[in-house]
């Protein structure tokens, strides 16, 4: 069992939190299993021998101090970085040489810490790009904009509009995203990821730079996605309130090492985590 590997963590308080989350919400089997991942850039060790898993339908948070390797972890999951060591098992298959395209194809979508929207395009177009893997017509047909190509475009447009409605960004549909304030851009980015109808959604600090009210909205969106579509969510966030409230299980990284893994409550009381990350008074 891979869980055994997790147990090697030195802290007795940290348990694999299946019982706790099961108590709260039903989550499915392991969909993504990361085994002994190590990644370094030249001399910088971003990730050292990290293992954890993600169960279907759960909200899995990754937390840790700045530079701990959280974003790098997401990059490994969706194939932007290739780890030097380790194995990724996704839906029971070992992924070898997974590049981002393959990751996207297999249902992994994500948002980015530094917003990576397509600045020159409108909100609607940005969201439509998220549907590209589902588009079938070839470019000649699109050039003629005729028959099936046109019907397809309209069908996808309807999907995109659903997402726009869902995220309540109807009013800015035709605005170029470069002009939007930061918070809305984050929302559009979520919309783009959702448009792909992903199985796993990776969110890198989706609530940075938002005020409480906006965070509440965002949480709502995330929870609804999770509930309604059953999307598995991996979330990086620095707002402990959010993390503790909405996630089922939490992984804690520090200096590229895993220092904690478990339910929010377990993590909250982990002394290592408190020392390295949460600080006093949280």
């Amino acid at each position, binding site marked *: 069992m891979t869980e055994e590997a997790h147990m090697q963590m030195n802290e007795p308080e940290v348990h694999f939190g299946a019982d706790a989350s099961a108590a709260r919400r039903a989550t499915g089997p392991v969909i993504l299993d990361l085994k002994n991942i190590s990644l370094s850039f030249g001399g910088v060790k971003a990730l050292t021998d990290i293992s954890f898993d993600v169960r279907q339908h759960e909200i899995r948070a990754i937390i840790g101090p700045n530079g701990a390797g959280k974003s790098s972890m997401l990059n490994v999951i969706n194939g932007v970085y290739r780890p030097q060591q380790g194995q990724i098992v996704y839906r029971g298959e070992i992924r070898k040489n997974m590049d981002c395209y393959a990751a996207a194809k297999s249902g992994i979508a994500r948002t980015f810490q530094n917003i990576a929207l397509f600045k020159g395009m409108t909100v609607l177009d940005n969201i439509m790009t998220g549907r590209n893997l589902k588009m079938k017509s070839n470019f000649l047909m699109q050039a003629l904009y005729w028959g099936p190509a046109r019907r397809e475009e309209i069908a996808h447009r309807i999907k995109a509009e659903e997402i726009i409605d869902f995220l309540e960004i109807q009013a800015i549909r035709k605005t170029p995203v470069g002009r939007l304030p930061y*918070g809305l851009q984050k929302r559009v980015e979520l919309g783009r990821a959702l448009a792909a109808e992903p199985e796993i959604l990776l969110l890198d600090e989706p609530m940075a730079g938002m005020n409480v009210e906006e965070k509440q909205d965002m949480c709502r969106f995330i929870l609804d996605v999770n509930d309604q579509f059953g999307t598995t969510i991996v979330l990086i966030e620095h707002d402990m309130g959010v993390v503790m*409230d909405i996630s089922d299980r939490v992984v804690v990284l520090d200096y590229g090492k895993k220092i904690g893994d478990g339910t929010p409550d377990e993590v909250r009381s982990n002394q290592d985590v408190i020392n390295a990350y949460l600080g006093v008074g949280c």
Partner: protein
Amino acid sequence: MMTAPASTAATPAAAPYLSVNNVEVIYDHVILVLKGVSLQVPQGKIVALLGANGAGKSTTLKTISTLLRGERGDVTKGEVQFKGERIDQLTPNELVKRGLSQVMEGRHCFGHLTIEENLLTGAYTLNDSRAELKESLEKVYRYFPRLKERRNSQAGYTSGGEQQMCAIGRALMARPSMILLDEPSMGIAPQIVEEIFGIVKDLNTKENVSFLLAEQNTSIALRYADFGYILENGRVVMEGAAEELACNEDVKEFYLGVSGAGRKSFRDMKFYRRRKRWLA
């Protein structure tokens, strides 16, 4: 030594150190963003600028630091004064020399320069000796030990939080007497956020540096600030002492996320709540 140059003769808080008077800003000749914003920062105080996304906080700060021009924004009305002098026609360089520094939203580190070089560019306007530079550097490293570890990495390859620290550290290097901070806590781990605000308080009390900070993390901002303004849709809709604001019911509900019965779990927000607006 990080003494603020002009702050020794601290005048009473009454005379505004920085004042923004009825400023109107238009982007791209057509997009009206600030619709007559006025605010004051007294010397030696911390003033928080709060507001939802797109309210115009960053625009206000960029207006003050005259960085607006580079973004095709125009100040069509109003004026900005710093230390009793109109500054809207000055260049950012002259502002920094006068002791007004800005930490921009979204980090803006120099990607190809190392962290240390980034910090050193912050001291560009000072004609510091090598020893003085070293001392300033050490001070920043003391505030942000993480930066010291990564000092020789190119900033473009550091993590988001590290870049944010770098941006703040870079502004400190100029030893300003007034700092405009745009969302300093964004993407920063909680204990570092506390530390950053600690640093702000520290600089404020020990070295009499004034702050104008745009922040989304309202609770912490109001905890450290003396005074606050709330911006909505390009207008100031509420202002007051920080404690007052923190107790205001509306602010509590919409900016602090606490209502009546105290803080609610994010999980339990069952309904999309329509935002109440002071000005609809």
